């Protein structure tokens, strides 16, 4: 669950009074996990600022950001990165142009994890996984792993960024434990005991199995390896049930710079990925038809306030005309004030 509590953000605080611009004015927002929220609003209404405050690019002047009820307001962007995938409006922004597709994906694979200065950064098993993932995109990227991203089209780059932002980067067991203890709603000690009551027997069981397989002389080396991998997967599955931190996907007008056909394709892809992984998603868009078509909740921003928030069936019934009317109303109100 993601929450903004009473968040205020102004720009040019130190400058002249006329330059002061309030981007967000005491915003309260709660997003349940699994929700796909579309955000609309005029330029300068605070949509992008909200997103930047969520990821930690910007720090709010006052108020709190909570992730699974834990205050993350003072965490830096790179410390929160494990939980957020960010796709920017500019296709150049989300990938590193001078590096190959493979290198970009390897970096994304380790998002929010420690980077070892000794271990070689490429792995064969990763490469196979990347190819599998890229094939689903159907853009021919799987044959161009060693090509520099800089020479690709905006649509391809944006699709790659999307993959990088949504790639399931499996946290280590240690991280799973840490996250479960800090982010579960239970008491810390209770959570730790609960985790260990499953983890420890599973680990001993896995070790026992491994020992048995190793000493089984009737198996060949390859069979042994496969059997051990299977046993590990079983053990891994047991640990993963504690994996609380479902990734949150933030899309900041990610199709705005693409031509209509490519934009549609990228949007379809986004929808597919989000549905498959049941990701919590926030999508900023200027296209009201898209805002209505995708997602199960819609939020409208206006001059730093949330003026409209619908979800479920009510949202499904919305039309573009309704939204335009809302915009007009908000504008009138602002003039009257």
């Amino acid at each position, binding site marked *: 669950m993601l929450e903004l509590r009473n968040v205020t953000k102004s720009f040019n605080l130190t400058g002249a009074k006329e330059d002061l611009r309030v981007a967000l004015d005491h915003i309260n927002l709660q997003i349940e996990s699994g929700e796909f929220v579309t955000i609309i609003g005029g330029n300068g209404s605070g949509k992008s600022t909200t997103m930047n405050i969520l990821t930690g690019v910007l720090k709010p002047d006052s108020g709190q950001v909570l992730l699974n009820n834990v205050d993350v307001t003072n965490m830096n*962007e*790179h410390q929160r990165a494990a939980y957020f995938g960010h796709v920017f409006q500019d296709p150049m*922004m*989300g990938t*590193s142009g001078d590096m190959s597709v493979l290198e970009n994906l*390897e970096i994304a694979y*380790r998002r929010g994890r420690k980077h070892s*200065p000794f271990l*070689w*950064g490429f792995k064969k098993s990763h490469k196979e996984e990347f190819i599998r993932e890229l094939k689903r995109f159907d853009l021919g990227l799987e044959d161009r792993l060693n090509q520099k991203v800089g020479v690709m089209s905006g649509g391809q780059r944006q699709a790659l960024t999307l993959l990088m932002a949504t790639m399931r980067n499996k946290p280590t067991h240690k991280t799973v434990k840490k996250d479960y203890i800090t982010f579960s709603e239970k008491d810390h000690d209770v959570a730790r005991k609960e985790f260990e009551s499953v983890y420890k027997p599973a680990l001993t069981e896995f070790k026992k199995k491994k020992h048995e397989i190793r000493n089984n002389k009737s198996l060949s080396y390859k069979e042994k390896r496969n059997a051990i991998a299977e046993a590990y997967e079983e053990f891994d599955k047991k640990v993963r049930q504690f994996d609380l931190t479902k990734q949150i996907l933030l899309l900041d007008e990610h199709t705005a710079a693409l031509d209509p056909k490519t934009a549609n394709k990228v949007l379809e892809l986004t929808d597919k990925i989000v549905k498959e992984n049941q990701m919590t998603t926030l999508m900023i868009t200027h296209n009201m038809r898209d805002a209505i078509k995708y997602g199960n909740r819609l939020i409208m921003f206006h001059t730093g306030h949330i003026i409209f928030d619908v979800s479920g069936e009510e949202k499904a019934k919305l039309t573009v005309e309704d939204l335009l009317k809302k915009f007009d109303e908000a504008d009138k109100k602002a003039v009257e004030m």
Partner: protein
Amino acid sequence: MDFLNVIFNILTSALPCCLLAIGVFLTFRLLNFADMTAEGSFLLGAALTAACIYNGLNAFLATILGMCVGVLCGILTGVLNRVLKIPKLLSGIITLTASASIALLIMGITKPGDLFATQIPLASSLAKGSKIQTIYSTFYPWNEFNRLVEVIVMAAIVLIVIVGVYYFFGTEYGMAIRATGMNEKMASSQGINTTVATIACIAISNGLIALAGALYVQDALSVSTVSATGYLVIGLSSILIGEAIFGKRSFKNWLISVALGAVLYFTIITVAIKLGLKTEFKSLLYAVLITIALCIPLMKQGFKSLFKKKEREDNHARA
């Protein structure tokens, strides 16, 4: 014999500059950071190594100490830029300015009674019969014909550094550093602490530059505040020449290009001087070389489009 001598001369001055060029390359190309510290860390590395050797310290230890002082310079520049938010160029200049005084202080060690000195003449103390050793002479006793040993030792060190740098920038953290340099926003959103990554890269870069200084001083056997200047330009031009001629298709290719660029650079300079160019014109030659190196990509493009045009015309004629 004269020909061999020329080759040894080229190699002994070029090989340390391979390290210099790689060091400058790491900040200039990977981080997009025009790092003025290079000049200072080269001088400091040379000065500290020479001072240590002068006082009878083991040559390997002295070289490593020289490298460490470069790393410290790099960390200082990195902290000035990333933590105190001083612009890139200025933070390099600040460290460079500070290092000039520190170098005088370090060189002062060799002059009892004086706090500062402007040079360390290892060669003259050697002539007086002092038994100091450089890393080259530890492999082979002092002799007029030890140039070959020198070249081999230098080449071995350069090779180790190239392989090491290639490996490091292919590791998980090395890739994170490269991503930081190319697209900081992306790196940060991918969970990389860009501050630490930048400082680490500047530190490694300056460590290599100081190592180049240490190797240089053990070959030249003297260092002064005057002789150890102008090396940033040499590093930059090596990068430009290497890139223009040997290409930058992949990271491996790029790294080797830069190292070869340094060798090519010194070959051109030495040959020009051998052909009778007055040393006073050296700076002018530098300028011309850099200009040509910068124009090579354009010239290549010009040739290509010329050929393509011809091809097109041919195709047209055939059709």
